[in-house]
């Protein structure tokens, strides 16, 4: 659409499963008559001959020849609607029409404002009580969110975050942590077809102040603060970005259970290593939220036992190399690694990066490495450019050491560890700014 703005007649080609989304994006950009043409899904893995078949075939959304849609899209004269575009006001009201408990639960569910579980209705009294959890004014803008890069940003105020915190069942004392999530500007409800989900880790004194868990079952539904903060992050993402609706603002083909709630605290006091936020330059007395992108895979193990190196290499080389791991480990495991000479997290993550290797052919034969990394390699950006020059059977590193992170958590009932899809993109937010 930016090309149209620059005076260049354009046709955007999409696969048909994105038809609703593509038309919605065009409408929200004020250009609902954007000329589009569609081919069948998928394009990935199709041969040149099959792709030629798409081009010579029908647009599956209109049943007209695909190339007719393309050529007419570029040359058909504009009509009145094409010339004026579409302007409209989308302001959202502060309150909804009064109703009964059952009616309002149904309204919230039908409007896509929930995670499809019952919510605590955000009455004026409950929201006012929640707002006592922060010193900030209700109308202060906390952040902006959108489900993907080609959508428009929506804004969230302190009051809107508080409303979603009430819906999640959170307590007012959790609000600064929830506001920090909102301030990240990172949605927990990406529309990605890959079913991306976020895991968030809380560090610093706020953990104990509000009763978060870094002990038994910390990654599960066994602590009120962990569960409701994680859920609030989901709900404020849904409502703070204009929805998370399948086929429109959500396209994750498989979905992801991390999209219910995935927030926990680090067991800083029981870890032999520096807390995560201190690794990233914060003071131990700072309270922070850190966000990890992924959630698409989990590998797990126990130990470290005598063959831990083989086990780690097997896990590291089996997971998606387009999504670096967040390694969560029980304090028992962390202390055993420290006993083995890994006196810092960095020493262990460096070992992981140096030993997680794969043939260059396999490294590049990945849909998302092709889409996201290959252009960088072609442009000469290291270390990708060197990997692109490697012979097909040459081993290349899957990750750089700084891409792999470790967080210590767990109740010490078992020496367990997991590798969770969790790329860290410098997303750590100071909770103290939102007290």
């Amino acid at each position, binding site marked *: 659409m930016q090309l149209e703005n620059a005076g260049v*007649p354009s046709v955007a080609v999409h696969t048909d499963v994105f038809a609703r989304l593509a038309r919605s994006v065009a409408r929200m950009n004020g250009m609902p008559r954007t000329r589009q043409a569609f081919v069948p899904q998928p394009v990935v893995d199709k041969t040149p001959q099959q792709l030629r078949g798409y081009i010579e075939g029908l647009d599956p959304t209109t049943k007209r020849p695909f190339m007719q849609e393309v050529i007419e899209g*570029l040359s058909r004269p504009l009509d009145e609607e094409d010339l004026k575009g579409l302007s409209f006001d989308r302001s959202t009201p502060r309150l909804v029409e009064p109703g009964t408990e059952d009616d309002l639960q149904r309204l919230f569910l039908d409007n896509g404002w929930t995670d499809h579980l019952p919510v605590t209705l955000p009455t004026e009294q409950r929201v006012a009580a929640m707002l006592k959890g922060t010193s900030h004014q209700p109308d202060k803008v906390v952040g902006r969110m959108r489900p993907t890069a080609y959508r428009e940003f929506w804004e969230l105020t302190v009051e*809107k975050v508080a409303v979603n915190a009430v819906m999640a069942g959170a307590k007012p004392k959790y609000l600064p942590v929830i506001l920090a999530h909102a301030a990240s500007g990172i949605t927990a409800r990406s529309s990605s077809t890959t079913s991306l989900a976020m895991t968030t880790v809380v560090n610093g004194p706020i953990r104990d102040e509000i009763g978060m868990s870094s002990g038994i079952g910390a990654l599960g539904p066994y602590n009120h603060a962990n569960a409701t903060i994680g859920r609030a992050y989901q709900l404020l993402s849904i409502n703070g970005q204009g929805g998370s609706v399948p086929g429109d603002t959500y396209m994750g083909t498989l979905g992801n259970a991390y999209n219910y709630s995935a927030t926990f605290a680090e067991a800083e006091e029981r870890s032999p290593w520096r807390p995560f936020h201190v690794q990233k330059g914060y003071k131990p007395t700072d309270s922070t939220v850190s966000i990890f992108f992924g959630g698409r895979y989990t590998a797990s193990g126990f130990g470290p036992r005598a063959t831990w190196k083989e086990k780690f290499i097997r896990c590291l080389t089996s997971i998606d190399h387009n999504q670096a791991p967040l390694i969560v480990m029980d304090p028992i495991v962390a202390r055993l690694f420290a006993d083995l000479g890994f006196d810092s997290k960095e020493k262990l993550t460096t070992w992981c990066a140096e030993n997680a290797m794969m043939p260059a052919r396999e490294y590049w034969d990945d849909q998302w490495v092709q889409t996201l990394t290959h252009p960088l390699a072609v442009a000469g950006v290291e270390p990708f450019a060197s990997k692109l020059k490697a012979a097909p059977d040459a081993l290349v590193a899957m990750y750089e050491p700084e891409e792999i992170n470790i967080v210590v958590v767990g109740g010490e009932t078992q020496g367990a560890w997991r590798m969770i899809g969790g790329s860290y993109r410098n997303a750590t937010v100071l909770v103290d700014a939102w007290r």
Partner: protein
Amino acid sequence: MSQLTVHDPRGYPPNVIGKRLAARPQSLVGKTLYLVDCLFDNSEAFMDQLKRWFAQHLPSVDIRMIKPRESWVDDPAMRQKIAADGHAAVLGVGL
């Protein structure tokens, strides 16, 4: 049953400002058409087939292939080049 007054949980969207489409040429004959490979997996192969289709059926159209620097990242320099040198563009495949 008692009536409750509750907050709307949605954030604040920007207003939508209508934008017009660019003026169309009467035909593509003799025009320069950019095929923009948006860097999705296999989109280059798709665009190559599209180029071959034009060469076979509309050979007077001057087809030029172009790519942005990165996926998902706006490339103003690429847009400027298309606007300066081209008459029309096809973008794909993907979003």
